[in-house]
Each structure stands twice: as C-alpha cells, then as structure tokens.
C-alpha cells in the first residue's frame, strides 16, 4: 500500500455538533495525527459544497483515504462514499465517525464530548489506513413481488405493481380481502361510502391477471436476500374450490343448519352465520368457505352433507381439501399486515362486555353499515333505537395504563360516527374527548360541521360507566369536564368506545419472519422516519399501512403507492449492488478444520474435499462475520471489518493523547 494520505473532514452540522463539541479544536487535533494530510471543518459536510471539498482535496492533495467526522453512518455513509468515488477514489477507502447521534446529542459536558470525539477520530484515522479498495457485487432482482395483507394498503400496492406489468402474489390470511376498510360504512371527512371506493379495487384484484391472490394463506418461511427471496406460503383449505364455485349460495340454503347459528366474524358477532358461508356480500373471492370448527361433518363425520347435494355435479365442495405449501420466488416484499383494534375489556370501568349497550366503534361501524347485521339501522341489541349516545375518545390511546401514543384516527372516526348516529337516530350525542385532533385536509372543517349539527363536546376523560340506579336501564357516563371544572354524570342509552389501534398480536412473529425491527409498541420500524419511511433495515422489504403505525386511509394508500414505487425502482434497475463486506477464506491459510462450516446461517461455507479447505460462496454470504471470529487459525477475513482494522480502532480509542 502506498503511503497513506488521509483527508479528515469535520462537520459542525450547524449547531447540532458544534454546540457540544469544539469542532475547530477537534480539527486541529486531527491535523496532528499520523498520515493526515488535510483537515477541514465545514458547516454542513453533507451539502454540495461540503462534498465538493472532498473531491477537490482528493484532486489537489492526492488524498488516498477519507475520514468524515459527522453524523451516523446509517444516515450519510452512502453520501460520503459517493463523494469519495466522485473524487476518483474507491468509495471504500473511506470511514465515517459518528460524533452527532453518539456524541454531541447525548452528552452535555463539552470537554468530555470533545475528548470522546478525539478518541473516535484517532481510531478512524488508524483504521482507514488499512482500508483496501473494494468492488460492490451486483445481484439480479427477481421481478415478482410478494404483498402480504389484503387490506386497502395491500390491495393498492398490488394494483399499482400490476399496473406496471409486474407479477404480484397477494397473500391474505382471511377468506376475503378488504381488511378493516371493508367493515366501514362511510369514511371521514368526505363521508363517501367505503364500499363504493373499496369494492371496485377488490374486484380489480381478482380480475387482474398479473395478480395471484391467495386467501386463507400465511407466509410460513422466508429465505434469501434482496432480489432473491424464496418464500413458502401455507394455503389453508377452504373446502370450497375457488375455480369451481360460482357463489350461488345454494349450499348455504341447503346446510343442515336451517338457521345461522354461529357468530359472524365479519359482523363482530353482531349477527350469525352457518358453517358454510360467504364472509360478506362483496367478499373477494366470491367463493364460499366452510368453517371446520363449526361444520358437523368435521366434528362428527356424521353430516348428511346436504351442501354437496346442493352443489350437485358442479362438485364445488371438497371436504378433503388438504393444506398446501407453495414456494415462490420474489425479488421484493411489501408488508401490509395492518392492525388490530384495542380490546376495551382492558379498561374494565368502561363496562365493555358487561353492559350490552357499550359498543366498540368498529361494532358501530357495522351497525351503521347497510350491509351490516341490522341493514344499516342504528338499533341497540334489544332492537330499540338509542335516544342518547356517548362517544368516549382515546380508549387505549394517550393513556399511561394502555398505550401512550395517539392512534391518529379515533378523533375523526368518532366525529364521523357522531354525525352518522345523529343522522340516523336524531339522538343526543356526547363526545368525551381529551383534545380534538383534526390536522388533516378538510378535517377541521368536518369537526366544525359536526359541532354545528349540535353534537355535544365534553372535554374530559371518562372515569366511569355504570347503570342508572333507578333501573331505567340507561348507563351513566361520568367524567370531569375540564372546561367547566365540574364532574358530569350523563345518562345515555348507548356508549361508543373510540378504541385505538394496536399492532397485530403476531407482529413479533411476522417481524422475525421477515427479519425486521419493531418499535416498543410493536409497529414495524422504518429505515429512517423521514428519508426512508417505507423501507426497512432488510433490503427489499417495504412497509405499507398501519403495520408501520396508526394512520388513516389516505395516508395508507399514499404509503402503499410509495412502497410499490420503491419495489419498482429495484425491479426496473434489474439488479442491486450489495455491500462488499463479505467474508473470505485465505485458502493457503486454511487447515480444513471445518469449524466455520456449521456456523454460517446461510450455508455459504462449504468444504472442498479435493483441496481439503473451506470455501465461502460470496453470493450467499451476508457479511455477519461470525465465521471470521470463530476461525481458530485466523484464515477467514472480512472485507471492511478486517481484524487489523478493528484492532486499530480499539488501539485508537484507547491510546490517550
């Protein structure tokens, strides 16, 4: 290696760094370090003029190593590698020092923070000397895409990709796509009908030859890496053949159960269904489904199987239909697995589950829905139309005991429900709220409109819901009105709980399946909150909709489009460039002890009988370095993380100036 000529570039990041670290002093110190040729400080290194400095110096001073002392490499490593390359150097002759996220932002004592920064710079300068030019590997991107979840997010992403001519696998766990949106009646703030805007998209999915729709299906395993994922999908039996069934419903008529007997999941148990049923009229696919939990044939084997007769020689029913495992190859994956609503039983004093007239907002969505259990008629379980209704906001949101976060949509849908209830019943509607959050387009206007309709707004958290003592059957809603500064006890016929949104119960398993990170609340973690909101830390896996965090339909659809676009970018590029941080074996140093072979999670290491040495398949290696650390004779090395580079870093941070 020729004499190292290092350029060190220290960033002020405005005051982000400069406020806690003596940048000029740090630069001055860097200049005293061995092999350092040029040191510069600059207000914003990541800006064009900042990067220009690097290019210029490489040219003017014949630099062959670059160290940028600024923010986290996860943010700008790419940027500065780019600048290094633009200056005519191999981008890997560069190293980045993080003195913002991990120094200036977390320390107060300027002297201590600056001392820490000095140590880190010294380490980087020592390390970078040992860097070698590296080439990025290219790997082809499989053009097919997997979309997990058939709610509005998954549907929109799938249609967008299909429209671009890409083949999409849409995998949905339920018997139908549509997700939560299909359960809504109207959507805020425009009050247009959810079904009217959703069902056409659902049918479009079914009709699109680029989309393979698998309902009653779940992803069982994911192997491979960006551009080359191998996914195994478990397809549960429907017992009704999709390509045969015409959805004529005769089998339902014929079922030995004369009347529906079992809770209808889609209507949240507000109505009943038979063991063989159509999830809801507009379900996609328009195919019936048999629930083995409730079907007599499955439980006793002694059913007359009238459904089979009804279907006749169409033979659309196959009670022996097995579970199938399908393996598909895709280049990219979009996760749109959605959310679950908060279970109000966790707040006992609201009486949900105890008092029949306490409803969750989603149940009310069904009650107001024309295709719902009551055909859209707003009546209580006893068939009576409520004269007074309380809507309790922030149930399971903004709450120390359940979820601290704001679920973002509850205020607006609560206003929507207030409007609908008033419209359908003329009842007095009381909104118990903490704050009304209406930050979206036309949201505030909608809030005002609902207020003008005469809906009551009581600012206060509901402390208790209990039956009226006089036995008149109404419920007393008690809250402290923080505007009037007095406790209000309001008797109502119906209580609607504005439940918040939560991560799916199985979010952890899904996260592990796709190798993602989760926020503490269980929402999938985006790569960067601002610059990469739909990307994840696993290349080629993108997020759409509420699995990433609570959001409303417009945001969800926008995000789904963004995710589709990210996938398309990879697909149309045709290939992606992999980090060259792979492990490699120095063959003449390998004794063939085989220690490394079982340690590789990707089976990238194999033993070559002829040479009696181990070999690493670079295409399979993901660069974790586990084998490197375990090679007992030091015959395995890792690009970008060579032993020597790390030892230099250790020595660097500990060699006190």
């Amino acid at each position, binding site marked *: 290696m020729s004499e190292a000529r290092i350029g060190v570039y220290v960033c002020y990041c405005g005051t982000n760094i400069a406020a806690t670290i003596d940048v000029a002093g740090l630069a001055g110190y860097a200049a005293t370090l061995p092999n350092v040729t040029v040191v510069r400080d600059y207000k914003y290194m990541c800006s064009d003029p900042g990067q220009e400095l690097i290019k210029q110096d490489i040219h003017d001073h014949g630099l062959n190593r670059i160290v940028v002392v600024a923010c986290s490499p996860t943010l700008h490593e790419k940027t500065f590698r780019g600048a290094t390359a633009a200056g005519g150097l191999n981008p890997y002759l560069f190293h980045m020092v993080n003195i913002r996220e991990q120094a200036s932002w977390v320390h107060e004592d300027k002297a201590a923070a600056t001392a820490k920064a000095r140590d880190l710079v010294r380490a980087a300068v020592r390390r970078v000397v040992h860097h070698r030019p590296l080439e990025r590997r290219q790997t082809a991107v499989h053009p097919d895409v997997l979309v997990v979840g058939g709610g509005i997010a998954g549907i929109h992403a799938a249609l967008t990709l299909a429209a671009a001519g890409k083949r999409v696998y849409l995998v949905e766990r339920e018997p139908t796509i549509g997700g939560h949106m299909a359960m809504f009646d109207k959507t805020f703030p425009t009050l247009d009908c959810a079904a009217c805007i959703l069902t056409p998209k659902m049918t479009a999915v079914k009709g699109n030859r680029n989309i393979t729709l698998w309902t009653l299906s779940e992803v069982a395993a994911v192997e491979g890496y960006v551009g080359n994922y191998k996914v195994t999908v478990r397809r549960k039996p429907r017992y009704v053949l999709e390509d045969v069934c015409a959805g004529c419903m005769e089998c339902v008529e014929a079922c030995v159960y004369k009347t529906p007997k079992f809770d209808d999941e889609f209507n949240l148990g507000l109505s009943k269904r038979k063991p063989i049923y159509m999830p809801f009229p507009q379900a996609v696919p328009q195919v019936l489904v048999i629930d083995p939990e409730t079907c007599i044939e499955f439980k006793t084997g002694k059913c007359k199987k009238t459904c089979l007769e009804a279907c006749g020689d169409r033979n659309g029913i196959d009670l022996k239909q097995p579970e199938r495992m399908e393996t598909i190859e895709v280049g990219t994956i979009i996760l749109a697995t959605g959310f679950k609503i908060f279970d109000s039983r966790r707040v006992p004093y609201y009486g949900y589950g105890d008092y029949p007239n306490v409803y969750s907002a989603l149940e009310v969505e069904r009650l107001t829905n024309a295709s719902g259990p009551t055909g859209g008629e707003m009546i209580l379980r006893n068939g009576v139309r409520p004269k007074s209704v309380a809507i309790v906001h922030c149930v399971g949101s903004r709450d120390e005991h359940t979820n601290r976060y704001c679920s973002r949509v509850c205020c607006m849908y609560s206003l929507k429900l207030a409007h609908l209830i008033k419209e359908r019943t003329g009842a007095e509607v009381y909104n118990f709220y903490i704050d009304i959050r209406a930050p979206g387009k036309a949201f505030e206007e909608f809030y005002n409109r609902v207020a003008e309709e005469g809906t009551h707004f009581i600012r206060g958290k509901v402390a208790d819901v209990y039956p009226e003592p006089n036995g008149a059957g109404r419920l007393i809603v008690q809250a402290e009105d923080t505007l009037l500064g007095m406790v209000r006890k309001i008797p109502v016929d119906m209580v609607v709980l504005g439940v918040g949104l939560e991560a799916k119960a199985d979010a952890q398993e899904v996260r592990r399946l796709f190798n993602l990170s989760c926020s503490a609340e269980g929402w999938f973690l985006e790569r960067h909150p601002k610059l990469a909101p739909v990307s994840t830390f696993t290349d080629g896996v993108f997020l759409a909709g509420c699995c990433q965090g609570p959001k409303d339909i417009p945001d969800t659809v926008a995000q789904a489009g963004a995710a589709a676009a990210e996938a398309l970018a990879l697909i149309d590029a045709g290939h992606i460039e992999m980090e060259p941080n792979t492990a490699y074996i*120095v063959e003449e*140093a*390998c*004794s*063939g*002890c*085989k*220690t490394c*072979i*079982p*340690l590789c999670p990707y089976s990238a290491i194999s*033993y070559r009988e002829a040479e*009696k040495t181990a070999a690493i398949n670079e295409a399979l290696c993901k660069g974790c370095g*586990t084998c490197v*650390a*375990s*090679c*007992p*004779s*030091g*015959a395995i090395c890792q690009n970008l993380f060579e*032993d020597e580079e790390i*030892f230099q870093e250790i020595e660097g941070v500990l060699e006190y100036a």
Partner: protein
Amino acid sequence: MKPKVAFYWCASCGGCEEAVIDLAEKVLDVVAAVDIVFWPVALDFKTKDVEAMADGSIVATFLNGAIRNSEQEEMAHLMRRKTQVLIAFGSCAQLGGIPGLGNLWNRETIFNEVYRDSPALVNPDGVFPVTEHRDNGHTLRLPRFFDTVRTLDQVVDVDYYLPGCPPTPNLIEQAIGALLSGKLPPKGSVLAPDLALCEECSRRDTKPEKLSLEAFHRPSEVLIDESKCILSQGVPCLGPATRSGCGAQCVEGNMPCTGCFGPTSRVRDAGAKSLSAIASMAASNDEAEIERILAGIPDPAGMFYRYSLPASRLRRKRQEAV
C-alpha cells in the same frame, strides 16, 4: 572458519536440550558444520568464555526458557549482545510455556505455598530464602524472583521463533539448515508451517462437516476412539487453533492437542481464538443449556493458555486479584 552457534536455557525444563540431543547422529553433522561455543548441558564452555567474545560474534543462539528471574534476564541480554540471530527456542521462550502458568499467581503466593504451606515442611521459624543472606561475614545472594514470567521477546529483541514443547528435531534441523544456507524468512517469523494442525492430522477426514457438541468431555472421562477426530468425540482438542509442524504427535498418542506450538501468524491471542472456536460449537442457543455444555471445560485459562499465558494479551492475572 565455521560459524559460531550457542545454546542456552532460562526458565525451562531441559526438554529443549534433549530435543537437540534427539537430533541423534545429525548432531555430529551439526558439530561438523558449526562451531558450538556454548552449551552448558553438554559442553564445558563457561559464561566467561562468552563474555570474552566480541559482540555479535556468535552467528546464532538458540535460547530456550522463559524469563523468571533477574539472572535469566541478564543472560538474555548477554546472549543478545553477542549474537547476530537470536532464536526463541521452544514454547517457554516463545510464549512463556508451562512455567507461564505461574502468571496466575505471583512471587508471594508461590513462596508461601512452597516455604509455608507445603505438607512435608518443617519450618517452625518461618525461614524464607532471601536475595541476600549474611552468614558470619560471608554474603550469599540469590537472584531476584519476578512476580511475572515473561517471554524472551518481552525482554530482548528476538529474530526468530522455533515453536514447540519441545521443538521437534526435524524443525530444529530445518532451522539450522536455513541458517547455514542463509535462506531465512523475514525477521520475526516462526520457523514452522503457518497452517493449523488439522492440516497434518491423520484424523482430519473423520471430522464431520457440521460439528456441534451437546457436551464437552475431559480425556479422563471417556474412552477416545483411536480412529476418529478427537474434537468430534467431544474432547476439546486445540489442533484447529495450533500451528502444525509437530506431526500431530499427541493425537497419534490418542490424546488431544494442547497447543504447545502456539497460534498461527494471523492470531494475536491463541487462547482467545481457540476459546472462540470451541465455545461456538456448543449445540444450544439457550443460556442455561450453554452453561451446562461449557461446564465440560472446567479450567478455561489452564486449557486455552496452557503454554501461552505470558504471551497473551493480558499476560497475567491481575496482581490485585491474585
């Protein structure tokens, strides 16, 4: 005039001298080719003869043994001064060797064990040896015993290393050959193959490709199958982490390699590396279960630093903690 060669010993057992004598008839060839000017175990030349020589007049000195006391340190400096090519000869000089295990203790604890707590001892007055003892006008001195055993290159500049406890005659022969022919590798080289022992182990092919272990056994606990890789039988063998060149003698003797040849040139801390490799084989991801599996290795320091504690990154147990 024949090149002058010397052999000397510091903190060692004499095994390295025996290894030279084990050159057998080849000793005569060596004697014919070189002029041995110092070799206490076999020849009657004295230190004063060495002191009388001009500095650098000895072409090569094979110095075995670690540095344990002040006299050895002085001899090391003397030999360095008189010698062009100084060879750290054997595990003790190269890595500290078995005596290096003394670095788990210090002068005081060792003295107490020997002169205070030894079972056969009858020492009512608590007499300890002293560096200077006056006895009706006569002064008797003993060298200063250090707390810490050091390798030769921690005391003087070393040109080459000849590994092994002891080095094998064929390596010694090759080294002398290289010296005489002037075909020497770069300074600081270890004069043995830079590959791990598995390379020359007759049992390599019997080792499964994917080996992970549900238990580690001590050689005393199991009957070792003479035909199979010892590690694959759950008995820790340091072969994968140890430099080859000995012909896998211990494994041929149906016992695991204990690492006397030290690490390859690419490893900085022999113990840490072999620990890493062996621990990684534990066939579990559960903390308690891993604990159970690794319990089969009751003495990590003694196993992984059997010959190399003074040469390890930490060199010794903390004085305060001894």
